[in-house]
C-alpha cells in the first residue's frame, strides 16, 4: 500500500519512553495531525518519521519500502520546523532552491522552480531578499516552499504555525489545507492546537503519554471520543459518572432511560458536550441544578450549573439564550443519543 506505515514504533531516551508501541497508517495523499499536550511524544514520533531520531524498536515503511534506518537526507521528504530554521546566510530564493542545489540541479531549473514556488506562496519577486527582512507570515511561507521544492514524498510540519499571531494562524491553516489538497501530498502536522487539527486534518491522531489514544476523522474525534482523555482534550465536555440500571443509566442521581450501556459495564463515565446540555424549567427534566455563573461571550453563552455536587457547562447560541440568572434553579435535560459512554 502506498503511504506511510508505522509498526510498533517505540522510542526510549534512557529509561524514559517517549513513544510507546505506536502503530499508524497514513494513506497516500492524506493529511494527518498529531495532536496532544506537550511531552506526549508527538514531536518524537515525527522526528522518527523524518529520520532525525531512530526508533528503539519497530518499523517505518514508506510506499512499501522499509525506511527505518534510511538516513534523513535519503528519504526525500520536506519538513517545516517549529523555529522554521531558514538559513540566515541565504536569500529567500537560495533558501527555497537549497534542496535542488544539493541534488545538483542546474541554475535555470532552480530558478524556474523557485519562481513557481514563490508564486504559489504569493511572494513573487521576493527571491533576492534576505530572509531576515521578511515578516513572520512570509517566513512561514518560505519555509513551506523550501520544504516542497523537490515535490517530496512526505510533507512534515512540526508546530508550523505556533509563532504566528491568532488571526494569521487561522488564515494559514486554511491556506495550508488548500495547498495540501491541491498538491495531493501526504502530510503530517504536529500540533497542540486542536482548532488547527480540526481545521486541516483528514485524520486526527490524539496522543498522550507516548501512546495513540485515538486516530479518527475530526468529527468522530469530537462526537465519538474513544476515552475520557480524548473527550476532555478535544473541546469542552462534561464528564459525568454513571451507574447502569435496568433501562439505561443513572447520571447525577437521575435515571436517563434509553442510554445504551455496553454489556458488563456496571459503571463508568459519560461525556456530554456543552451544546448537548439543554436547560429547561425545573421539574421539566430529570436533573435539577442551580446556576452558579454565566459567561456571555457574545457569540456563545456558557452557563455553569451545579447539580448533585458536580459542575456542568451548557453552551447555547444567542437565539436560544436560556432565560436564567445566577442562583436560579434549572432543569437539565440530556438526550441519550448525545451521551458517549466511556470506561472510567
Amino acid at each position, binding site marked *: 500500500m502506498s503511504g506511510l506505515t508505522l509498526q510498533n514504533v517505540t522510542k526510549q531516551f534512557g529509561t524514559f519512553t517517549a513513544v510507546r508501541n505506536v502503530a499508524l497508517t497514513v494513506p497516500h495523499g492524506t493529511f494527518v495531525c498529531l495532536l496532544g499536550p506537550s511531552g506526549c511524544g508527538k514531536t518524537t514520533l515525527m522526528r522518527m518519521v523524518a529520520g532525525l531520531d531512530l526508533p528503539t524498536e519497530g518499523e517505518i515503511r514508506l510506499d512499501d519500502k522499509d525506511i527505518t534506518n534510511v538516513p534523513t*537526507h535519503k528519504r526525500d521528504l520536506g519538513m517545516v520546523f517549529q523555529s522554521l530554521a531558514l*538559513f540566515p546566510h541565504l536569500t529567500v530564493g537560495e533558501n527555497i532552491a537549497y534542496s535542488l542545489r544539493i541534488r545538483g540541479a542546474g541554475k535555470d531549473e532552480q530558478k524556474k522552480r523557485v519562481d513557481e514556488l514563490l508564486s504559489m506562496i504569493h511572494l513573487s519577486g521576493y527571491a533576492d531578499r534576505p530572509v531576515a527582512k521578511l515578516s513572520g507570515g512570509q517566513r512561514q511561507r518560505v519555509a513551506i516552499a*523550501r520544504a516542497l521544492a523537490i515535490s517530496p514524498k512526505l510533507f512534515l510540519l512540526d508546530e508550523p504555525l505556533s509563532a504566528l499571531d491568532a488571526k494569521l494562524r487561522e488564515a494559514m491553516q486554511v491556506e495550508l489545507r488548500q495547498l495540501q489538497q491541491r498538491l495531493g501530498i501526504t502530510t503530517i502536522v504536529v500540533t497542540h492546537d486542536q482548532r488547527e487539527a480540526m481545521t486541516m486534518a483528514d485524520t486526527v491522531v490524539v496522543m498522550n503519554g507516548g501512546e495513540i489514544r485515538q486516530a479518527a476523522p475530526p468529527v468522530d474525534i469530537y462526537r465519538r471520543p474513544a476515552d475520557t482523555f480524548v473527550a476532555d482534550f478535544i473541546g469542552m465536555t462534561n464528564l459525568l459518572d454513571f451507574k447502569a440500571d435496568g433501562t439505561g443509566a443513572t447520571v447525577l442521581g437521575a435515571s436517563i432511560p434509553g442510554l445504551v450501556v455496553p454489556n458488563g459495564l456496571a459503571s463508568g463515565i459519560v461525556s456530554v458536550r456543552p451544546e448537548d446540555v439543554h436547560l429547561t424549567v425545573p421539574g421539566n427534566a430529570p436533573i435539577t441544578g442551580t446556576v452558579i455563573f454565566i459567561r456571555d461571550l457574545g457569540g456563545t453563552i456558557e452557563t455553569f450549573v451545579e447539580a448533585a455536587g458536580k459542575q456542568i457547562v451548557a453552551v447555547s447560541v444567542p437565539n436560544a439564550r436560556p432565560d436564567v440568572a445566577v442562583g436560579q434553579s434549572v432543569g437539565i435535560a440530556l438526550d441519550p443519543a448525545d451521551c458517549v459512554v466511556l470506561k472510567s
Partner: protein
Amino acid sequence: MRREAPQKLTDYAPLAFPAGMLIVFFVVPFATMIAVSFFRRDPAGFYSPDFVFDNYARFLSLFFGKVLGFSLFLAVAVAICCVVIALPFTYLLSRTKRRTQVLWLVALLSVLSLSEVIIGFAWSTLFSRTAGITNLLVMLGIMSEPIALNPSFGAVLTAMVYQALPYTVLVLYPALVRLDPTLTEAARTLGASPLKAFFTVVVPALRNTVVATLIMVFIFALGSYLLPQILGRPQHWTLSVLITDQAIYQSNMPFAAAMAVFLVLVTLGLVALTVYAGRKGEAA
C-alpha cells in the same frame, strides 16, 4: 531598550578609565616607538633623536622582504590550520553532553597555562631523533629507524598551531553553541548529508565568526618569536625574531622600531582588506 546618545560631557565619564589605560599602555608606547623608528643609531651607545628614514630604507631590501613575506605566510598558515582543525572539532564538541564539553574546555584551558618556552622544548623533544615520536613509529614497524623532525617548517607550524588552537576553540565555541541545531537538521531533511550540511550551512552561517577568528589567530601567530627559533632553521625565522635580535642583541632600537612599525602597518592593512572583502561578500 533604547539607548540615548550621551548628552553632557559627564555622560562620557565611564569612558575615562579605559581611555586612560589605552593612552598610558598603548598610545604612549606606540608613539614612542614610532618616534624612535626615525632616530639615528649611535654605534657607541644607544640612539640620538633625529628625523631620518635610514631605518626604513634599510628595511626595504630583498632579505627583509623575504622575512616579512615568510612571517605573513607562516601566520596565515597557522590561522588556516587552526580554523580548519578547530571548526569541525568545536562543532562536534558543541553537540556533545555538557559534561564532555566542560572536560574538553578545561583541558584546552590548561594548554593555555603553558608558556611558549615549555611548548617549544616539549615539541623539540617530541620531534627529536633520540626520544621523539618517530621512535613510536619504529616500534609499530611503520618506519625503519627514528629520524629528527626538527628543525623544520613542519615543526614550527605544528607547535604554533598547538599553541593557538585553544584560543581558536574558545573563540569559536560560543558562536557554535548559539547556532540553532535545527539548521543542520533542516539541511538534512532537504537532502544534505551531515558533511554537506556542515559545509553548506554551518560554515557559511558562521562566516563572520570564522573571519574574525582567522584574523585573531593570524595576529597572534605574527607575534611568535620563540617557537621559530627553537624548532626552525634560520630561514624559518619570522620578523619578530629579527626585531628581538635587533632590539636586544644588536642594540639597534631605531631599526627594531622601524621593523615593528612596518609590521603593524602591514598587519592592519591585511586585516582591513579581509574585513572589506568580508563586507563586500556579504552585500553580494
